[in-house]
Each structure stands twice: as structure tokens, then as C-alpha cells.
């Protein structure tokens, strides 16, 4: 028996950190650039004018308040997210309830719905770009003409561009909501339905007082993921409208991209990126709380 003069790290104590080390080193390699970027957001870094580099404190952030495009981009980011999430979760719930009733060919429909979900978003955007050609050769305008709709200028008009991005994003992500909710529906316990039936509840009452409350944690989860992704939507907009026309579809991510990779104002672009990051963090914190509450109330 030897006395140990100082406390030794036992293997059980450091082993988890050793196991995590490779992953943490890789991620540190990515967190370091972020820290550097955070620093740049307080500087006047302009790639073409390296001599003007200096520390400007909060100038980039305060400057955003006087930038008209920022207010529009912020508005579009939040407005698009709100509309997209309501639309996609609403329709997704409808599709899930529809498929949950014994629809013929449900298994096939369900498998097919995975395909849009796993397509690269930019490829989805290009597919729709082909279909949304504003000339009379565009198949979408051709189909709409049977319903008496005049040819739509999809990407050329401000309203058209916003609607186009919304449609494309919805096509790719509606299955995500539907599949989460369909999976949840199929795993719901049977007892509440039995009880409701004994109480003489009708179809609508059962949906309102049994299905929706039981489903609420999953609805919140779908809202959470869709909100996070809609706040950051980039691929679809880049491939179709590039933020135009007249900045109608410029969200914060597109704006930060334009500042940093078209005008090379890295400091300003980075400040916009940080603002978006803060919005994402705040919204996700709110939604996490909502999720915890929903999960508690049903369990």
C-alpha cells in the first residue's frame, strides 16, 4: 500500500473525455472560425480594402438599423417563416389525418412522400424552376390555364417570387410534417378513443378533444424543426430568385451572403449573420419551452 501524494485521475474519470476528443477536436476546428467571425463582426473588414481594417465596436450592428434592406429582409425572414410554418404544419396535419384513415394505396403514397423530402433542396428548386417557366411553355401555367388562371409571372414579379419560393419549400417539406404526425397518429393509445366513444363523441369532437391534444407534442416538434429551417432558408431562394426581384425574397441569410460574397464586406455580412443566429437561438429557446410544456401535459 503506497500513499498517493496527490489526487490521481482515475481512468473512469477521463475516459469519456478521451472518447469524445476526436469529435471535439473536429468541432473545435469549426468553432474557432466562428469565434473569428464573431470578432470580424466588430470590424470594418472589407476584403478589397484590407488597409481600412479596424475595430469599430458595434458600428456594423447599429448600421443595420439605418439600412432599409435590413428591415425588409428581417420582415421577410419572419413573415416567410410564419406563413410557411402555418401552411406546412396545417397541410401536413391534414395529409397525416387523411392517410391515417384507411386510404387505399396508403403504403405507396407514404413511400412516395419520402422522395421530395430527401431531394437536395437546390435540385428541388431547379425542378420547379423548369416547371414554373413564365413563358407559355411552362407546364404549371399550362395546367393553371385549364382552371382559367392567366399565365403567372412566377419569378419575375414580387408577389410571384414569394409565392414560388413558398410553393417549392412546401413541396419539399410537407412530407416531413406529414410523416412525423402520421407516425404519431399510428402510435396513439386506443383507450381515450374508447372512452370518447362511450361518451358519445362525434368525429369532430374526437378530433378536437382527443386526437389534437394527444398529438400536440409532435405538432410542436414539427413546428420547431420547420421554424428553424424556414428562418434559414437559402438553397431554394438562391437557385430561383437570388433574393429578387427588387429584393422581394431577400431574407437575412441571402442579405448576409450578398454583403459578404458579392460586395466582400465581411464585417457587415458577419454582423447580419450573428443577428440571424441570435434570432434563431431566441426562437428555438421559446419553442423548446413550449415543447417541454406540451410533453409534460400529455405524459
Amino acid at each position, binding site marked *: 500500500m503506497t500513499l498517493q501524494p496527490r489526487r490521481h485521475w482515475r481512468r473512469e474519470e477521463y475516459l469519456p473525455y478521451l472518447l469524445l476528443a476526436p469529435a471535439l477536436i473536429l468541432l473545435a476546428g469549426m468553432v474557432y472560425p466562428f469565434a473569428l467571425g464573431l470578432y470580424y463582426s466588430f470590424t470594418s473588414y472589407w*476584403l478589397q480594402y484590407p488597409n481600412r481594417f479596424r475595430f469599430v465596436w458595434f458600428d456594423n450592428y447599429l448600421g443595420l438599423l439605418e439600412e432599409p434592406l435590413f428591415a425588409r429582409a428581417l420582415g421577410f425572414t419572419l413573415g416567410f417563416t410564419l406563413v410557411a410554418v402555418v401552411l406546412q404544419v396545417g397541410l401536413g396535419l391534414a395529409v397525416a389525418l387523411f392517410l391515417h384513415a384507411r386510404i387505399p394505396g396508403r403504403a405507396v403514397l407514404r413511400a412516395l412522400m419520402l422522395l421530395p423530402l430527401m431531394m437536395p433542396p437546390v*435540385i428541388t428548386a431547379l425542378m420547379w424552376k423548369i416547371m414554373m417557366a413564365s413563358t407559355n411553355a411552362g407546364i404549371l401555367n399550362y395546367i393553371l390555364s385549364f382552371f382559367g388562371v392567366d399565365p403567372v409571372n412566377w419569378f419575375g414579379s414580387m408577389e410571384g417570387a414569394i409565392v414560388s419560393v413558398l410553393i417549392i419549400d412546401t413541396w419539399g417539406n410537407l412530407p416531413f410534417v406529414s410523416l412525423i404526425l402520421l407516425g404519431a397518429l399510428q402510435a396513439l393509445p386506443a383507450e381515450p378513443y374508447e372512452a370518447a366513444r362511450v361518451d358519445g363523441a362525434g368525429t369532430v369532437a374526437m378530433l378536437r378533444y382527443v386526437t389534437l391534444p394527444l398529438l400536440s407534442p*409532435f405538432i410542436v416538434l414539427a413546428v420547431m424543426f420547420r421554424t428553424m429551417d424556414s428562418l434559414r432558408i437559402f438553397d431554394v431562394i438562391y437557385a430561383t430568385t437570388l433574393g429578387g426581384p427588387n429584393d422581394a425574397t431577400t431574407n437575412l441569410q441571402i442579405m448576409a451572403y450578398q454583403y459578404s460574397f458579392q460586395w466582400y464586406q465581411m464585417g457587415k455580412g458577419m454582423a447580419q449573420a450573428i443577428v440571424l443566429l441570435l434570432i434563431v437561438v431566441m426562437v428555438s429557446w421559446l419553442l423548446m419551452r413550449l415543447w417541454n410544456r406540451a410533453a409534460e401535459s400529455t405524459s
Partner: protein
Amino acid sequence: MTTQTLPYTTPQAVPYQRYVPKLAVALGAALLLAWTVFPFLWILLTSLKSSADIISVPPKFVFTPTFDNYAALVMGEQRGQYSSTRPDFPLFFLNSMIISLGAVALSVLAGIPAAYALARFTFPFKDALGFVLMSFRFVPFIAFVIPLYLLYQRFGLYNTHTGLILAYQLITLPFTIWMLRSFFQEVPIEIQEAAKIDGCSWLGVLMRVILPLSLPGIAVTVILGFMFSWNAFNYPLMLAGRQTFPVTVGAIQFISYEQVLWGQMAAATIVAAVPQLLLSLMVQKYIVRGLTMGAVK
């Protein structure tokens, strides 16, 4: 009365479907099918059209198919009339393969021990670490890509496969760790305890118990990680050059200032989509789990 004596078997027997007229159900199913599948069919048709057929008014459903667009894709930059500006699609496809496979391999190598630690050990800051990993799923890419672009330019990683594989770790590594963790946790703890009693060290438990038993889960994680890497667009858009573009960035090269090569773009989207379509059928049960990083099983 018979229904009440039987135990309630499936929750699918929700009564509302009884009241929905059959015609409306069929119409709804047809609408859903058309909305999901028609874009694929139309792009497939477009990719088989000659350039004259593509711009015909009204759009043609019946035409003489041609494989010219695919041939032009395969020929790449060497031939064809706009040889200098034409995207080199076979190279982009190869790049996608190299980068995606590299990114997944690196993530799995670093992710297995990390997931093992998170699944089977308790240590300080464990929950915080898990949360940090999860939060990478929600980060706006632009906040990372601006400094990465500047650093890559300086250290020669710009426009290299290595640089892209490292940047893709932002996508694949947190995902891999969370997915593997959820699969490792499903291995019964009793088997691990039994192995320990038989003299297995932590390494033995990992190699002889956890890994063999979660092999299907690892396969699913690899396939999904590959698919997410294949879908990546924004990191390579900024960090890759013409020699390292993956198919996602390559496909938008068919839009130039002079013209849009619609037929070839359609062919390129089909080629870029094929691996995704095949793989998604293989792992269909796990896609929702993958997209929510294990939150929904």
C-alpha cells in the same frame, strides 16, 4: 355489439373515415399523388426532350425521346459547341461521391467513440455537450461560412476535397453522434454488464457488444449521413471551385448569363436525384428519425 366485445386492436379505426364519401377520398389520394410525383415525371420527360420540344407551346406530353441531354452531360467539357463554358458534370458527380464518402467516414470514425461516451458514461457537462452538438442542427450556415472562406483562402483549403470534407463535419458529425447515441442506447445494458463480468474492458464492450449489436443502426446512420452530405449546397457554393463542385452546385451552372440549358439541367437534376431516391427507399423507416436527430423514433 361484436365490436365492443373484441379488444380494441388498432387506433386506425377512427370513425371519421366512415363518413367521408369514397369519391372525395379517391380525389384526395389522386391529388396527393399528383402533387408528389408529377414534378419528377415532368422533369424526366423534359430531360428526354430536344431543345425544340422543351420550348414548344403548348407543352408536349408526346414526343420522340432523345438521350442528347444525358449524352451532353456525360461528354462533359471536352466536346460540344459551348465547350469552354459547359459544366463538367461527371467530375461534379465524382466530387460529390468523394466529399460525401469522406465526410461520412470521418464522422463515423470520430462519432463512434463520442456516441459511446454519451450513451454509456456519466460525466460532468454531459448534457451541456449533447445540447451543443444538437444546436449545430439549427445554426445558420452563413455565420460559419464567412470566416471559413477567409481561413480556407489563407491556408490553401479553398477548392480542395479536404477542406470540404472538414466543413461538412458541421453537417454530418453532430448528426452521426446523435444518431449513433440513440442506437447505442438501445443495446440492452444487461449484455454490457455480462461482458464486463466476463472480463471485457471498455474497449471490449465497444468492439464485441455495442458495435456488433448496433450494426444495422450504424448502416442507417452512414446512409443518412451520406444523403445529407449529398444534399449540401451552401458550404460548397462558397468553399469549392470548378474542380471540386459537387452535383448540387454543378446543377446550377446550367444557368448562365446567355441562356438556361433547360434540357441538360433537367438531366442533371435527374442524375443528382437518383442516389437519393434509391437510398431513401432503403432507409425509409429511419428518415424521420434521422431528420429529427433521433428525437422522433
